């Protein structure tokens, strides 16, 4: 359960209020008082950063001396809510550009324009909401979801020729919601830009193709690009970040030309869902699911079904997400290298989890509870080595 409110910093004019999960949206008056305490502190040279009630944490953040965000969440810590606020602000930049946010001339106009960002903000809220166990929710805030397809070099070569054909350095292919391959330019974008772009790309069952103007919060906050994508087959989305050309119609024609002979390969990748890693990669038999994170590139792969047989736990990817937010997150964000932990584990009644970190890479594995606790470390470490060395997948 999580909620974000947005106001103008100087006037305290409410701009919007979004929430996810079973939370009451804040009334106008509680919004005003939450903002009021913050302002009061400021007038006494105090910066109010956060507060906590028994079950809820509230975080205040100001951006560009112009926009104030107040984030409130249940079971979420200050760090996560602060990251959420930053991501929400970046999303606003993505849809309206930094200028309109820096000097707000017309509140009414801005309020309308900001509504374009709501669908993406909803995804951010969903990414941190641990109380939502209903949907197939497997997203983590600030990490692009990827899959590890077989034959990555072949797929890569098709993405490279697509990049040439559509005349854009920034291209990727999304399969069942996860990035399967991307041009080198895509990986050179700032991770903040890359993550938000992945959220703006519509799923293949939402539209046949789309053309969405986007600013890039880090790379291009004042000049918009066009995020163009289309679905050649259900489950598959071909993407490019474009300038004025090609228009959506030409884009579709180019995509058909470039990808029609590659459909079988793409369908093979789509068949990997929800395993999300090539079938040739075999896990230890006690492993039920995995979460793999690269904190430098800001990417992650997750799967709750690697074994194919028996399902002793109900929501494997939900457990992995909780494990991440409640333990692994601290391990990743710790700035002090010497204080950084490299291993952490959980033992519950029906399952166990273990995480190892090797520099920027973290692997979390979900085990059935029968695995001896001491064996988890070894399996986890060996699996991580195997992932980084296996030539038939690319991480």
């Amino acid at each position, binding site marked *: 359960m999580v909620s974000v409110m947005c106001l103008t910093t100087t006037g305290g004019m409410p701009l919007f209020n979004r929430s996810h999960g079973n939370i009451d949206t804040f009334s106008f008056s509680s919004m005003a008082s939450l903002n009021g305490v913050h302002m009061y502190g400021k007038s006494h040279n105090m910066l109010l950063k956060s507060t906590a009630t028994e079950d809820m944490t509230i975080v205040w953040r100001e951006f560009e001396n112009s926009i104030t965000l107040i984030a409130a969440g249940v079971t979420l810590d200050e760090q996560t809510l602060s990251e959420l606020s930053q991501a929400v602000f970046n999303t606003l930049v993505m*849809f*309206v550009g930094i200028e309109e946010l820096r000097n707000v001339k017309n509140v009414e106009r801005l309020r*309308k*324009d900001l*509504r*374009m*960002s*709501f*669908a*993406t903000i*909803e995804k951010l809220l969903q990414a941190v909401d641990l109380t939502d166990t209903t949907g197939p929710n497997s997203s983590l805030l600030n990490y692009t979801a990827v899959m590890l397809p077989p034959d990555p070099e072949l797929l890569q070569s098709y993405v490279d020729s697509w990049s040439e054909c559509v005349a854009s350095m920034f291209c990727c292919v999304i399969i069942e919601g996860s990035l399967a391959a991307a041009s080198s330019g895509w990986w050179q974008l700032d991770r903040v830009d890359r993550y938000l772009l992945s959220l*703006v790309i*519509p799923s*293949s*069952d*939402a*539209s*046949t*193709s*789309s*053309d*969405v*103007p986007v600013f890039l919060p880090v790379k291009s906050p004042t000049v*918009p690009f*066009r*995020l163009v994508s*289309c*679905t*050649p*087959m*259900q489950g*598959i989305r071909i993407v490019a970040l474009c300038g*004025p050309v090609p*228009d*959506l*119609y030409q884009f*579709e024609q180019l*995509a*058909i030309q470039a*990808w*029609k002979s590659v*459909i079988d390969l793409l369908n093979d990748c789509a068949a990997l869902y929800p395993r999300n890693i090539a079938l040739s990669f075999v896990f230890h038999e006690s492993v039920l699911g995995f979460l793999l994170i690269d904190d430098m590139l800001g990417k992650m792969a997750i799967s709750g079904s690697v074994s194919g047989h028996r399902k002793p736990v109900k929501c494997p990817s939900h457990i992995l997400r909780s494990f991440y937010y409640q333990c692994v997150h601290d391990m990743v964000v710790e700035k002090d290298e010497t204080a950084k932990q490299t291993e952490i584990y959980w033992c519950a009644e029906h399952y166990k989890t273990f995480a190892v970190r090797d520099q920027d890479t973290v692997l979390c594995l979900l085990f059935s509870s029968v695995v001896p606790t001491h064996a988890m470390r070894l399996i986890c470490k060996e699996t991580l080595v195997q992932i980084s060395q296996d030539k038939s997948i690319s991480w």
Partner: protein
Amino acid sequence: MSGMASGSMIHMDWQSTAEGETILQNFYNPHSSGRKLFGLLEKPSIPINIEEVSYKLFFVGKSGIGKSLTIARFAGINSPASYFETAGIQKINILWPVKIWEKIILFKLQCWDVGENSLKKYSHILPSCKNRADGIVFVFSFMDRATFTELIPSINKMTKDDPSHPAVTVIGTRYNPAINMEVSLAEARELELKLRTPVLKMGVVSPGERHEVHKVAPLLNIICEQLWIRDQEYLLKQGLSS
């Protein structure tokens, strides 16, 4: 629209006949209760001799009026529970089989949906949507008088100077004759006579409703017929001038 009367070529209730239902079977999504959205390279498995015709439709109307919802219902896809304003252009291809005289024809309606605020903010969007449009769909709400009054000026603005003479379709959302609507049926009728095109009515949505396809079938059939007539008239003119 002139010359040919509507409802005379397309079998308006063909989709409910045995033949129609058999064909439509191939359009459903096995994982949901709705229809399938076909990718650019996909087709339903129907006899290959069925001819396909493709049209571009551009949907116009105020933010929140119901453009996206209307298209989602036409496409038979389950629309999201909560309302989000559309960002940029979202295009949905609807495949819809109709029977014209004795022939089954597969219509591909390429519906161009744009969030009204994106349209205002970014100037490249309008030309991209209008370019080579076969039809423009003007959406108003029966519960918002101003959107109805603005129809004629908006139609004039959009279609004047357009050499391709797009077909004009008008759809009224939030139609509910049981209550007192801001726009009366008599006024809608008056507009129909003036424009010589029917005002299509989208009723109140009840989520997860079965037989949704039979609710939207008459509207889709009328749109397909308009586009078909426009083509026939174009061919006739070509024939006369050559």
